[in-house]
Each structure stands twice: as C-alpha cells, then as structure tokens.
C-alpha cells in the first residue's frame, strides 16, 4: 500500500518541463524527490481523511432500517436509496431548515471572515512595530485562540446571559441566547474574538519576512503611510493573508461548537450546516447525516475554488515570479 502511494505520488518522473532550466536529468531527479517529499502528507491524509470521506460518500447513498419487526426490534441492515437522501435534503419536509442553515452558514462565514481579516491585519500591523513589550502583546493576542473552544463558548454564554456582564454593562435586558438576531450577533462577536488572532499571527509572520529596507526605500521616495500600506505592505503580505482567510473560510463554513454551546441546538437563527449533520447523526440517521456532510463538502469546495481562482493566483503556483519582482526594488541583490 505504501509503495503504491509513493510511486503514484511521483507523477512526473522523467517528463518535468522547466521553461527556464532545461536540465533534464536534474529535472527528473527533482520530480522524483518531489514524489518522495509529498507522499507522507498524502499518505496521512489518505488514511485519516480520504478514507472516512469515501465511507461517508457510500453511507450517503443508504438509509438505515426504519421498520420494526413483530417483536419490536428495529429491522437491521441498510437499504440502498441512491440519491434519495439528497433529494430529501433539497425537497423533503426539512428543506426549509436546510436552506436556512445554508443561509446562516454563509452569513456567519461572510461577516466573521471579513471582520477577522480587517482586525487581523490591524493587529498584525500594530504588533509588527518595534516597541518594548512587543512579545507580551503577541502573547496576549494568542490568548483567545488558545482557550479551548468549548470553554470559551461557555464563557461567552455567561457573558451574554440574561443577567450577565454584557447586559449589566449596556444596561439592557436583551435575551442574547434566546433565538433571534441578538443570538446571531453574540455568535459573531465570540467567533471574531476567538479567531481574529489566527489571521493576525499569520499576517504578522508575512510582515516579518518583508525586509525592512523595502519600507525605507518607499519612505525615501516620499510615500505616506497609507501609500506604503496599500502599495507595498499589502501586496507583500497578500499571500499570507490569503492563506489565513482561506483557512478561516473553510473553518467557519464548518462552524459547529460555538453556536452549539453558546446559543444551543435547533435555534433557527444560528443553526449551521454542521449542526444539521450532527443532529442527523446523533439521531442515528447516518445516511442523511452523510448526505448533509457531502453537500457541505461540495459547497465548501466550490467556495474555496472560487476564492483561489478569483483572488489567489499566488496561492497556486505560477505567481512566484510576481512576488519576486515585487520585492526587487527594495532588495536588488540578496
């Protein structure tokens, strides 16, 4: 099995095509090396992710026995239903709930990711400046990210409780954890708080690899702070920012624990696709649960694909030269 995966992961031995460097034995060696280097990742992912996904895909085409025999026992065994589970999702009695969950998932992802990206960049810019106690600031930015999700969701649940600290500070009587718009807001606040540091740290790392002389050169050229940010900083941290946003998107499209603990199950205003899948699985309806999971997978894949195609040429290869030319003015010769 191992060898199969390894050899398969060396897809291009002997045929690598290098536009600039046509050293074919070296290219072949590089391709072989690539195969060896990439295969461990593929193997691990194959075992732990691809296998369950394949199992879930299969499961989504079946339903569990629903009937009961004369003695009151559930009839065992699954029946093949083809795309029946999918049809139920889109057109069955729970279709309205499904579309509501799609809307919630999309809404949460859009709002939280935009807010996180903005906040994260601001955090990174501030942390990037040299000042005393910078380490301390960086460490404290890590705090929200480091608290286990279940614990932080519970923390926010009490912060947003009817007699909690938010209502006390605002002098309001809002029932945040009941269903409705306040529940949505509570989820967004808690989610952004927890994950903006993730974006901040990745963008900060991106900032740190930009040589300082790039900024100096720009300053000498008379660029003001905004120009320096828009024309130098942003393009240079763009790859890091895009990776951060991409992974935040993937994560928040699968959002589960936070609304579950903070607001609760079956609350229409915060129910996400993951929560629907969970609900079906917990009611031992594995077929429909797998169908939800698969639909989600497709949705996430489409969003991610669109994102990478629209914004992220640099994420997928070719733009390497672009990044190099961008840094050339500052760093002529390394």
């Amino acid at each position, binding site marked *: 099995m191992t060898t*199969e995966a390894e050899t*398969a992961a060396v*897809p291009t031995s002997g045929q690598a095509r290098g536009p600039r460097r046509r050293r074919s034995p070296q290219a072949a060696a590089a391709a072989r090396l690539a195969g060896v280097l990439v295969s461990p990742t*593929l193997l691990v992912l194959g075992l732990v992710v691809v296998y369950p996904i*394949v199992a879930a895909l299969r499961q989504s085409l079946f339903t569990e026995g629903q*009937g009961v025999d004369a003695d009151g026992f559930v009839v065992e065994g699954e029946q093949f239903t083809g795309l029946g589970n999918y049809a139920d999702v889109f057109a069955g009695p729970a279709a309205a709930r499904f579309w509501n969950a799609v809307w919630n998932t999309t809404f949460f992802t859009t709002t939280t990711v935009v807010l996180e990206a903005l906040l994260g960049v601001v955090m990174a810019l501030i942390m990037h400046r040299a000042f005393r106690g910078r380490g301390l600031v960086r460490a404290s930015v890590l705090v929200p990210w480091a608290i286990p999700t279940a614990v932080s969701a519970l923390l926010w649940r009490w912060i947003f409780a*009817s007699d909690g600290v938010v209502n006390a500070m605002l002098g309001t009587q809002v029932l945040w954890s*009941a269903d409705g718009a306040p529940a949505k807001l509570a989820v967004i606040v808690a989610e952004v708080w927890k994950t903006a540091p993730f974006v901040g740290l990745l963008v900060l790392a991106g900032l740190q690899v930009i040589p300082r002389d790039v900024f100096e050169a720009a300053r000498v050229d008379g660029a003001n702070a905004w120009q320096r940010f828009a024309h130098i900083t942003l393009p240079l941290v763009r790859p890091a920012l895009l990776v951060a946003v991409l992974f935040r998107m993937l994560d928040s499209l699968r959002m589960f624990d936070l609304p579950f603990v903070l607001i609760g199950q*079956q609350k229409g205003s915060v129910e996400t696709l993951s929560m629907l899948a969970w609900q079906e699985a917990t*009611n031992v309806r594995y077929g429909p649960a797998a169908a939800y999971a698969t639909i989600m997978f497709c949705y996430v894949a489409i969003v991610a694909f669109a994102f990478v195609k629209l914004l992220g040429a640099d994420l997928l290869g070719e733009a390497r030269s672009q990044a190099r030319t961008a840094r050339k003015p500052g760093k002529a010769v390394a």
Partner: protein
Amino acid sequence: MRQRNRLAIAAVLTCTAALTAGCGGSSTNEPSAALEGRGPITFVAGKDEENVNPKIVEAWNKAHPDEQVRFIELSSSADDQRQQMVQNAQTKSDAFTVLDLDNVWTTEFAANRWISELPREQFGVDKFVPTTVETSLYRDRLYGVPATSDGAMLYFREDLLAKAGVQPPTTWEEMRQACDKVLALPEAAGMSCFAGQYEKYEGLTVNFAEAVHGAGGVVTDPNGKPQVNTPEAKRGLDALVEGFRAGTIPRDAITFKETETRRAFMDGKIVFSRAWPNQYSHAAKNDGSSGVAGKFDVAPLPGVAGPGVSSLGGHSLAISAFAKNKATAVDFIKFATAPEQQRLRLDQGSLAPTLSELYDDPSMQAKYPYLPLLKKSIEGAEPRPRVIKYGEVTDVIQEHVYAALRGEKPSDQALADLQARLQELTGQQ
C-alpha cells in the same frame, strides 16, 4: 498531465478502499442473547458529582479479584454519553459492558438490540418503585435495572408564604393567587412568581410534559400514540404561555436551565421554583451561598388542573449486547443496585433511590426530610414518551413548544403541528 493527476488520486483512493475492505468485519462481535461468561468487564457511566460510581466499583473489585470491573468515565454531558454508547454499538465493540443508561434511552437501545434482555426474576423488581421499573421495560421485557430516580418538587419561600398567610399551592390557580398576596409584601419587591426550565433543551420537554400531565392530558397514550392536540394538552401549554405573557413567569426564564432556575430561587428572585431534589442541599447551605437557607420548603408540584405530575428522571443499568462476560455483568448490576449502594448514592451524590424500602426507612427520613414527598413525586411521575426515536421526538417537542412560549405561534397551532410531526415519527414504528 491530467492522467497523471488522476493516477495519483486514484492510488490514494485505492489504498483507502483496500483499508476499508481489509479491515471491515474482522473483529466485530455479534450480539449474543445468552448472559454467559465470567471475567473482567467494564462499567460505563458519565462522571457523577461525588464519584459514587468509582467507589462502588472499588468495593466490588475488592470482593471479586477474578472478575474485575474497570470504570470507564464518560463526559458529564448526557448528549456525549449517549453518542459514545451508540458509537460503541455501531462499531459492535466489546469495550463497554455495563451501561448506565438514562431511562429515556432504554427504548431506543432495546429496540435496536444494542442491549441484552435481562431475566426479570433475578432482580427482584417488586422491591423497586413501580414507575422506575416501567421505564426499564420494552414490550414488557426487562432491559435495565433502575439505579437512580428523579422526581421534581415545588420549592417555595416558606418565610414569605407564612407572612402573607397562604398555604403551599396545589394548583396553578392557587399558585397565582398565592403570588398575588406574596408579591404585595414589601419584602417581595421586584420578585417574580414562578420558574421552571424553558431553554430549548431536554428540560423543556420535561417541563412541557409536566404541564400537560398536570392538566389531565398525555403526551403519548398507553399505546404509544401521540395525543398532544387535545383540549387538556392545550390547557397545559397555555398555562405556560399565559405565565410568560402575564409575567407570572419572568421573561428571562426562556433562557433558564437548572442552574439559572436555582440561582433565581437562591438569589430571592422568584417565590416558587420547579426543581429536582438535589437542589435541596444547595439551597439549604448555611455558608452564605444561598440567600434562602432556612427560608424555604418543598411541596408536591402543583398542576394546571389538580395536583401536579412530575416527569420521571433517572438511570438504569443495562448490558451491552456486544459485551463479553455477561454473567459477571449480571452479578455486578445486582451489586450496584443493592440497598447499600443506593444509600451511598443518596448520601454522597444526592441521587434519589429506586428501592421503596429506602424511602420508608426512618433513619433516612430523619436525614432527608423531603424523602416522603419525593417518593410520592416519583410514584406518581409520568415517564417521558417511550419511543424508539426519542431523540427526534424530544427535538420536535422542544421546537414547537419553544415557538409557542416565545409567542411565535399560537398554542393550538403549535400543538397541531407537533401532533402531525409526532405521528410521523412514531407512525413508522
């Protein structure tokens, strides 16, 4: 180039498919009906407050060196517990032997053959409070032995009631009238009348069932058919809806689980509260944590029409169908449900016993003055719907009742919708 990519992906898929095929079914255990075999077993339960279960296991292990029990402690969340037990059954693993089941799961586990039938004659079921045994039956066969029980009581502010000169109420109407007098007292400024648990979770099903039963209705009839679209059920639900509308029940009670209700009562925000017996010791604490120590008492739940009916809580011990050494498991269940262990549970974990004799024991009554009342509550308690798809049934109950309480749906429509959904869910059985 395309082909190569496909090759790579195909290889990964083949590899995993091979894994699936190669590993499937090799070490699974088929359920066996016979309760045979002796040797080491496991006991699976959620963590309890005072670690009573580990102590019981320890006591057993001392006396049975060849049949050791290993305690597997699950998360304290009931959802997690059920999920792990279901997963264990799904994988047909023999890792779990004796299961500590919430009594609302019994039907589902029994109907799916995830647990073994138990020989009724071996467990002396006559000695238990009848309602607790009832929840361990499926189609008249025994699938679990009740280990703990739970019945709700009405906690009330004795000091305020005495001052206002009213008796503990036995109906909702009396409770409203009592509140009118109590809330007129200067000491009761800013207080509300009553609260139970109305957040969207299992507790809402419990409180809804109590309201319906207390109004003379049922959630499911003795044949298991849902009957919530009835005048009685409507009267029960309306009592709650009206309570919220009139402010008898405080507005924020829609977010109350047990903790919030207890806080509201102990902080002196409500006069009456519906709660489980284990709140008693907390409210009675004299260390300053309770604002009502020495000022409260308990009474039977009031009903909407006549005396109230509690929903029945509690756990029973069952044997996983896929386990080994079931003979040992049977002995261990007998041991763990014996009077001695039940006393330990009550003493250390505030968990209500299931054996009648413990309630009638004068020495126990001296220690726990509420025992006679609790026994009555449990004897008269109604189990929640005993259906295979309990998980879905409780979900739809919560969905519709919550909508009615929040005023999003008139109660008759909520109940009509609920009836339709429940029929769908139970009709397939």
